[in-house]
């Protein structure tokens, strides 16, 4: 920022103007600026736990849009109605910046009692003992997970501790513009198409409609992940990478081929898709026929386009996909109200009324009985469709992989960087793969 007053201001007019801007004033002005624009980073931590008893005010923090906020607030209000001594301090915001804020709150000794988290950060938090191990609550039955799919529950376990409880289930979904395909008499993609078939289909679509057939997902970790699992590899194995430079080279080469055949958008448009939130995915903005998303994002996508959308699994063998916790509820380890917080998680997952209120906004309900009930009563067509597709896919799901390890958020951003390097033609697939794997090794070391 600039000083509000130029250094020459305030000099009496009419006096000898030669002395107006002296070296002394200049230095003073600069010193003032230096003080006004300090460069400081730091954080002070303090926290004190007092005894419990009486009314409880539980702080809850989540990311999402207005719709989710409304649903969540309603569900929490229902809890208060049933437990009048428990009220909530609710904070929510968009996904971008959410984890910065959560980390800052934690550092400031003021983390929320109950917070939403996803698999990108679960291990980061659990590995630093920020999250409460919910295992004892599970064992004592205070946290009822008897109706959860086993693999979904296990996807919340880090280093043998139950760090988060799935707030919903989702899986990878390839969303396509049905209207565009029908209008041009083109076939819709199907689950089980091979990657080659998918790319050939996309090329055909691009030629006929002039809309690129598929967004090049080479920068997308969840697409790479599925593809790796189909090759018998994985994103992580223990504390190591589950793939090699050769694997990534083949992945990047696959998509270079697709770009060369004109099946994908131009690099800058791909970049736009890579860096946009769900409401601006290319299938919605009409810049691509397909987008690579999570199945439960269908309703959100649908809200932003008039066209009809369809959703199938990612190409290749769908058993490479798994019941992924779209997000978890976790409890801060130092929370004064941990029992209450766990009870709220239990309520949000197992209370029929609460689950009905929440719908599929965070993914399919984790409780299978209630999931069936919600599926019957849901009216939103896009939601209905995503439930149907995911339920079909659930028959084919393979076992869950391990939760991504510490450093995963960096691995994600390094993948984007390397893939875009290849997309813009600044690196060959082999160079980009080499760059990516080197960076990953440093990130998870």
């Amino acid at each position, binding site marked *: *920022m*600039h000083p509000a007053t*130029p*250094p*020459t*201001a305030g000099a009496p007019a009419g006096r000898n*103007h*030669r*002395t*107006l*801007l*002296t*070296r*002394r004033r*200049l*230095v*003073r*002005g*600069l*010193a003032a600026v*230096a*003080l006004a*624009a*300090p*460069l*400081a*980073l*730091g*954080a*002070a*931590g303090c926290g004190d736990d007092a005894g419990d008893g009486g009314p409880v005010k539980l702080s809850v923090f989540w990311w999402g849009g207005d719709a989710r906020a409304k649903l969540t607030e309603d569900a929490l209000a229902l809890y208060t109605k049933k437990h009048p001594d428990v009220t909530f301090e609710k904070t929510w915001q968009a996904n*971008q*910046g959410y*984890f*910065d804020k959560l*980390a*800052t709150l*934690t*550092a400031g000794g003021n983390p929320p009692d109950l917070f939403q988290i996803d698999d990108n950060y679960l291990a*980061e*938090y659990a590995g*630093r003992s920020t999250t409460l191990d919910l295992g004892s609550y599970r064992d004592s039955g205070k946290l009822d997970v008897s109706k959860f799919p086993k693999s979904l529950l296990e996807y919340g376990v880090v280093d043998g501790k139950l760090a988060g409880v799935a707030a919903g289930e989702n899986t990878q979904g390839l969303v396509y513009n049905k209207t565009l395909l029908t209008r041009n008499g083109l076939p819709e993609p199907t689950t089980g198409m091979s990657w080659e078939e998918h790319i050939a289909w996309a090329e055909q679509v691009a030629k006929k409609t002039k809309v690129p057939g598929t967004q090049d997902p080479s920068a997308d970790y969840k697409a790479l992940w599925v593809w790796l699992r189909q090759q018998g590899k994985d994103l992580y194995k223990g504390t190591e990478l589950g793939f090699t430079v050769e694997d990534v080279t083949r992945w990047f080469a696959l998509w270079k081929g697709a770009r060369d055949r004109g099946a994908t958008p*131009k690099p*800058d*448009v791909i*970049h*736009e898709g890579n*860096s946009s939130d769900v409401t601006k995915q290319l299938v919605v903005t009409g810049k691509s026929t397909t987008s690579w998303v999570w199945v439960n994002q269908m309703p959100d996508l649908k809200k932003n386009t008039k066209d009809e959308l369809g959703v199938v699994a990612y190409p290749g063998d769908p058993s490479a996909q798994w019941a992924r916790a779209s997000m978890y509820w976790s409890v801060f380890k130092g929370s004064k109200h941990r029992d209450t917080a766990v009870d709220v998680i239990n309520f949000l997952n197992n209370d029929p009324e609460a689950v009905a209120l929440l719908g599929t906004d965070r993914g399919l309900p984790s409780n299978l009985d209630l999931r069936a009930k919600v599926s019957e009563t849901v009216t939103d067509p896009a939601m209905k469709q995503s439930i149907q597709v995911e339920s079909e896919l659930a028959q084919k799901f393979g076992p869950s992989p391990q939760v991504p390890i510490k*450093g995963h*958020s*960096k691995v994600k*951003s390094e993948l*984007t*960087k390397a893939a*875009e*390097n290849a997309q*813009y033609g*600044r690196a060959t697939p082999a160079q980009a793969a080499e760059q990516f794997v080197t960076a990953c090794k*440093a*990130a998870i070391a």
Partner: protein
Amino acid sequence: MALTTAPGRTSRTGPVGPRPTRRGAGRARYGEGLAGYVFLSPWLIGLMGITALPMLLSLWLSFTDYDILTPLSEVRWVGLANYERMFTADPSYWHAVRVTLTFALVAVPLKLAAALGVALLLNRAWRGVGLFRGLFYLPSLLGGSVALAIVWVNMFNRDGAFNSFLALFGVEGLPWVSDPDWALQTLMVLAIWQFGAPMVIFLAGLKQVPVELYEAAAVDGAGAWRRFRAVTLPMLSPVIFFNLVLETIHGFQGFTAAFVLSNGTGGPVDSTLMYTLKLYISGFTDLEMGYASAMAWVFLLAIALVTAVFFSTGRFWVHYSDGDDS
């Protein structure tokens, strides 16, 4: 930085003769001094509590593996490891240094040139010149705002207003903000466009140039260019110096626009990875606050060094009227 300016000032002023004593006997001076500090105390307490202490803390953190989530009491001392990694094992650190230097080297001189040029134009007694001054200053009022950056990004999209404008002339524009070869340039143009603050300072400086000098020069037959070179520039040199130092520091610290343009990633392909953005990502996204603190300290020292270089070269081209007096 502030603490060193006091001795620095006396040494630089050098032997220009005794300065007039402004105060009388010691007693009165002491009383006034105390009152001064009392009046200063709100600021002083703020400085210590909000700036100095966290800065010292971050200096300590820069020698640790602090990751934000772990309590401060449990951080591990890692010695110079963070600094070592920065200089030897993190290519993206040096990339960020390059991006920042490129940005500052291009944007700062152009911004100052634009500011000076417009200030010269507006330093006339036109009718309505005040309105123009206001209009030119306006972009700077919006300053580092997020809203402005969002507007900018949308203007320079592939289908943004700028390309629609180019299309009027049959020119097909580029996707400026999502092309790694152009994204940083787009940010530079944004920075240059916000030349209002240095412009106002230049204007104030121009007003101080004695009219007699121009008259004398004109009598001696100097044309407009010659008058600018021989009168305006030397008389304005302290103001130029001031703006140069300020804008350089400001340029190094550019963050908001880069953050908005890249959604906080420094993309496309790290082309907008400014130093401060890299620092932010390290601290808050990668949860390596110890490493980020080390970066902040190197940054502080680098800026101090650049400023010191400016001051040491200043004596060759900055003309202070007070120095000439004696």
